[in-house]
């Protein structure tokens, strides 16, 4: 049953990690990266694939993109020690950057929306089953009803976190320094600059610009192409 549920949830999965790893072990970092990127384009990349892509970009010397992929992997596996270590190591290689921005919903730093949702569904399902069973036995059903309602609330919280990750995603400035403007226009004066590797949160989008907020609370518009946007 468990395997059936997993196979339903993980529909569309493929075993393409090991092929890239073989290239990696042979010293072909670029080949491994290209392979993993192609796989990533076919669907929603798993945390493992995102993590490996972070390693590949790091080895190629593109630390901002490496940070982007690792932080993206952290959206699904927020407590992964390897991801945390690699992120810390990569950040230590970059100097004079503002502190990494926090996600829009704080709890997603410790629990992914998927984990929270699964927990909520289990609790809601258990509560619903208990309520139906006690109803048939003509017992007092309301304790089970409360359990079910709590589970539904957890599930809704998970959906809210998922929505926040999509509506206000994290992003990493890549490909050099980018000017931050007070308005989403090319001819607007640059207020301040963000170096490559700066981790920001996208607050809004307009035309080809995104409104970003840094870890220091500074806000402004940057071109969308200047940032790697991290979607779950």
């Amino acid at each position, binding site marked *: 049953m468990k395997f059936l549920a997993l196979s339903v949830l993980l529909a569309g999965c493929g075993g393409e990690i090991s092929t890239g790893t073989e290239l990696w072990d042979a010293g072909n970092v670029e080949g491994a990266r290209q392979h993993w990127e192609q796989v990533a384009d076919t669907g*929603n990349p*798993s945390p493992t694939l995102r993590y490996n892509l972070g390693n590949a970009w790091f080895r190629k010397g593109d630390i901002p993109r490496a940070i982007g992929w690792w932080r993206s992997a952290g959206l699904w596996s927020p407590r992964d020690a*390897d991801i945390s270590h690699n992120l810390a190591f990569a950040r230590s290689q970059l100097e004079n950057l503002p502190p990494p921005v926090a996600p829009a919903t704080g709890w997603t730093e410790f629990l992914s929306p998927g984990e929270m949702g699964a927990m909520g569904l289990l609790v809601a399902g258990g509560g*619903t089953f208990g309520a139906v069973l006690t109803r048939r036995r003509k017992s007092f059903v*309301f304790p089970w009803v409360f359990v079910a309602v709590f589970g539904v609330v957890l599930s*809704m919280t998970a959906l809210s976190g998922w929505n926040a990750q999509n509506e206000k995603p994290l992003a990493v400035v890549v490909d050099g320094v980018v000017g931050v403007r007070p308005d989403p226009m090319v001819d607007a004066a640059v207020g301040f600059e963000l170096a490559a590797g700066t981790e920001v949160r996208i607050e809004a989008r307009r035309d080809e610009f995104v409104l970003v907020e840094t870890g220091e609370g500074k806000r402004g518009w940057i071109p969308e192409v200047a940032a790697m946007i991290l979607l779950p």
Partner: protein
Amino acid sequence: MPLLLCWVAGPAFAARVELTMDSTSVQMGESIGVTVSVVDGTPTAVPRISTPPELNVQYVQQVSSSYWVNGRSTRTVKYRYQLTPAAAGDFVLGPAMVEMGTEKAVTGVLEVEVGDRPKGEELPVKVEAGFFPEVAYEGQVVVYKYVLESKIPLLGSRWSLPQTTGLSSFETGKTGRDAYVKQRNGAETSVDATYVPLVATTASTKQEFAAPVVQVDLPSDRERPKGRIPDFFQVYETRHELFVGETSHLEVLPLPPPPKGFSGLVGDFSFEGKLSASKGEVGRSTQWTVTVLGDGSLEGFALPPWVSDKNVRAYDAAPEISGKTGEKYQVQGSYVRTMVPTRSGTLQIPPLTIVTFSPKKHKYVTHTLTVPALTVSGSDESATVSSFRTDEPTVEEAPDDISPVRASGEATWARWPGVIGWLSGLFSMVVGFVVALELRDFWRARRKVPVEVPKAPDVSNLPVDPVERWRRLDEALRWSMAGPRFVDRESSLQAVESSLAAKVRDLWRRLDEARFAGRLDEDLEASVLLFLRERR
């Protein structure tokens, strides 16, 4: 008989204000009343009376009164004060300032003659105050000392200290106090000295500071009136006396132009450094403690920054500073620098150079603090200190590279948040349905009218009267077939099978014959009861 109205001020506007005194002369040790009267005015605050430091005026109470004179109303507000002199001489009291909304009125002044205490009544109390030292440099700590000496026991004392403009207190400069008894010529004198450490912040020429005033509580020799209420507030047991100290002087000299690297410390300091161990180990911490002793403020002082060295990492802890104030201010500071060697060999710690200004020598002094070389053992692998708060810091190996790639795992994942929404909605509907059913049952139960269920005729305790006895058995027979519906005989027979119906008809026939024809049937009651038991 008190002398009234010494001076009347001219009215500035419709209201009139006056400053009066019960007497123009007073002796040391006495107190007299002072009044500020406001006629046809509405003061908005208690009037302030300008007072020389040798006189102490304390507000007591307010009294209002109104008069009708020739059909015109006059309202007077009187503010009462008590004047206590602290020194003999001629003084000027006033003027008093009366605020009435946005307008202000000023009274005139009064001349007060304070006479010496009568001979033989001099109080053996002495007040002293002053700065130590009286000449200081900018940034130097000076101590303001005020002392109350008394040859008689005092019940209490309250000080009024002068404003110390150009001087400021500092965090580690705690006020010191010294109380003791000294003996001279067989007489005991109690001494209560207070020391306030202050930093001279602004250079100035010789500056005069006002004298401190102390109000002391002394045992009273007044005789308590007999038959009065108890002396709850000890009015008759204590009396108050004011004593004025001396004015004090302080001259603050500017510092000469500072040399490069001046630490900002002003005072006479000594520095001592000590290593927690003479031998170190790679990745293990060694503490270098620098102890500073001196008579100046250490606020804002930190050890000179560590010169970047690839062989050792250094971390400074927050300093621990403690100060003690007596005739002089003394301070001790402890500065700990934790060093973690990263390579083995002999570690030469560069000497510390600290430049201070010495008020005693009137010049800048350079202190050089050298530390013996530290022999470091262990492997040269890099180490990271995760904590250096404990004596034995936890040191863990930290990889200097990222974690390796993963060889297995799923490559892509389904985005399945929709599943959460759909399943949550499904569970919500089921739970909502269950709750609706529960609520429906609840309301039905509340609206249900209770029905009284008839009881089966009791055959275990049959009446003695034969007619009633047969009637009860007849009812029991019908009940046994039709139950609580209790219908007529024919209808009740329809509820049972035909074989029983014949038997019941036979019993009814025998019952009717016994009830209505008076035919004796000894076996009838037993037959009916047997039938009832079988039916049950």
